[in-house]
């Protein structure tokens, strides 16, 4: 026995040495720039498997670095995301490129790749410095009630959260359009909502996002008043379907608050939908993961959808907000949520149509024009914030007012663009606008 033990020890040490000296590099020690396989999209061919370079990595195994810090099944503590980093599993192929070996790892590298692209896009669009990097992202987020198939941005913790996806389509976490959509919410939150003065209407609209906080907080015992129990983005409720509850005296303050909340959510959602299209070129990027959303959320417009010609009029939204005292709160909230999505989809379609009108009028490549319109949107947000606060203090900010805010952010608006935007305003509200030539550019004026 005495003679055998040293041999056993030696054999184990040799086996350890063999593996230690095998020249392979543990993925937790891989950092810097690496090429990984991920499902990425382009406007022409849709999604395909591509080798992409992830840069600024601190650890490949955790897929963490300059652009993203992941948390798995996180909790919120002191308005920060808390939890451990998920551990990726890779193989290194014979060309020294890394291949995710399970779906969670694939989702992590794809999210990292898109956030890397979106960071560059922020710079290109004049929004560098709005967000802090790396971005905090929660994956495998567990929500009470088993909420699934959703992603949301939470402004208060400044994090993007992904709950498990159990449908048969493209997982939300690898859907570049949805990632860009959620990323826009972070820009909107910081440029519009976060800096709102306390006590203003803006400070009452929460994070200004439809599917952001309530459901996640619900997991921690906070009441969810806006999302379906099954966690689907929402079901549009027709007001006629809502059972009458308890008529009460109408409060102008509450009507204004419901109006402002629905409008802010709608605009935020609509511009975020535009962001998803701008980034992917796919007008149905949401339906790629959530096919049931196709009819309501497509950015394709037609005579039937009428979506690119007019927005939801102020009167319609105000009337809707005035119904709050006639219905059960949960049903009314759901109804207003549907209204917000309607507002949003109209904005998204108008922005897409504006891009097409501009591309044609300026003879600019479609991709370049998408980015240009995105720049105008970023530029318009601070002005919008001030106008919204001012209008909401006195009355109601009309949806068509944002078009005027946007027009002011277009430095060299041409005739086609002006006429299109004026058409949208005039089709939406009773107020009439016209285009006036101002040197080489056009501007909106009151119609005579």
């Amino acid at each position, binding site marked *: 026995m005495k003679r055998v033990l040293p041999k056993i020890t030696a054999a184990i040490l040799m086996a350890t040495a063999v*593996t230690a000296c095998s020249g392979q590099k543990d993925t937790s020690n891989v950092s810097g720039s690496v090429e990984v396989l991920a499902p990425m999209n382009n406007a022409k061919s849709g999604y395909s498997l591509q080798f992409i370079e992830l840069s600024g990595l601190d650890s490949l195994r955790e897929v963490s670095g300059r652009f993203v810090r992941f948390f798995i099944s996180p909790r919120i503590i002191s308005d920060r995301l808390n939890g451990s980093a998920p551990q990726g599993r890779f193989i290194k192929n014979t060309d020294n490129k890394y291949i995710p*070996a399970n*779906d969670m790892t694939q989702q992590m590298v794809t999210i990292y790749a898109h956030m890397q692209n979106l960071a560059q896009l922020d710079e290109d669009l004049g929004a560098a410095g709005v967000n802090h990097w790396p971005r905090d992202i929660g994956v495998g987020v567990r929500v009470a009630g088993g909420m699934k198939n959703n992603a949301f941005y939470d402004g208060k913790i400044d994090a993007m959260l992904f709950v498990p996806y159990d449908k048969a389509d493209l997982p939300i976490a690898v859907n570049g359009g949805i990632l860009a959509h959620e990323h826009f919410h972070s820009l909107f939150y910081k440029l519009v909502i976060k800096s709102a003065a306390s006590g203003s209407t803006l400070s009452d609209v929460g994070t200004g996002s439809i599917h952001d906080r309530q459901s996640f907080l619900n997991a921690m015992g906070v009441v969810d008043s806006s999302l379906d129990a099954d966690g689907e983005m929402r079901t549009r409720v027709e007001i006629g379907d809502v059972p009458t509850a308890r008529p009460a005296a109408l409060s102008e303050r509450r009507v204004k608050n419901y109006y402002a909340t629905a409008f802010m959510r709608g605009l935020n959602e609509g511009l975020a939908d535009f962001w998803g299209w701008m980034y992917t070129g796919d007008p149905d990027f949401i339906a790629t993961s959530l096919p049931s959303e196709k009819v309501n959320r497509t950015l394709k417009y037609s005579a039937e959808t009428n979506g690119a010609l007019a927005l939801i009029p102020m009167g319609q939204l105000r009337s809707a907000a005035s119904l709050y005292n006639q219905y059960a709160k949960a049903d009314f909230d759901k109804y207003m949520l549907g209204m917000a999505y309607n507002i949003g989809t109209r904005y998204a379609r108008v922005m897409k149509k504006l891009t097409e009108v501009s591309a044609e009028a300026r003879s600019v490549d479609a991709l370049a024009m998408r980015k240009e319109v995105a720049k105008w949107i970023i530029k318009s947000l601070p002005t919008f914030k001030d106008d919204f606060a001012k209008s909401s203090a006195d009355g109601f900010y009309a949806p068509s007012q944002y078009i005027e805010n946007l027009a002011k952010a277009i430095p060299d608006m041409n005739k086609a663009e002006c006429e299109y935007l004026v058409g949208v305003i005039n089709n939406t509200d009773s107020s009439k606008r016209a285009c006036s030539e101002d040197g080489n550019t056009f501007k909106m004026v009151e119609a005579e």
Partner: protein
Amino acid sequence: MKWSLFIATLCFSLFSHAQESRAKMPRPAPEKDQLQIFPLDLEMRYEKNAEGEFVDRKPLNLSFAYRAPDWSVLFEYSKFDEESGNPTSKIERKHEEMMVWGRWHLWKLKEGRTRLSVYAAAGVGGYQEEVTTTLSGNSQTDKTGYQMLGGFGGGADISYQMTKSFGVIAAVEGRGLMAQDFDPNPTWGAVLRTGVLFYF
């Protein structure tokens, strides 16, 4: 080539020592060498998932061994598959490995036709992983090529001699497998082997 030479050297050196010790030890009666075949092994090992939780893998495991009285050498092949994702975006990971184990039978007991032994083991070998990534029906397959792998373990076996040249055997073994990309490293597991043996 480099590491097949290494394995040969390792086996040769270990076995020559074992033979030397056997030569020095007084033996009442020489025991016959055996060829052991384990066609149906039950293996379980524990990898970590993304959340750091242990998940069990149940590889297909086949092995055969040459057993001298004090030592044995076992050749083992094992493989397992893991599938994740959904019909649109799916990832299939195939892991296969081949190992050669040196085993030292530290304690032995013989009662009639039944033999019992407790052993310690160390092994080296190679593994390969293959990942097939499928997106919307289009697939791409990538392989690691063979990478080095080491292992250590301990276990016990029991055999029953049925005829002059034939018997049955069962063994249970716990072990740790080590390779740079294993998570955890070492990856712990256990094997239950059942098989037949032939006496020379």
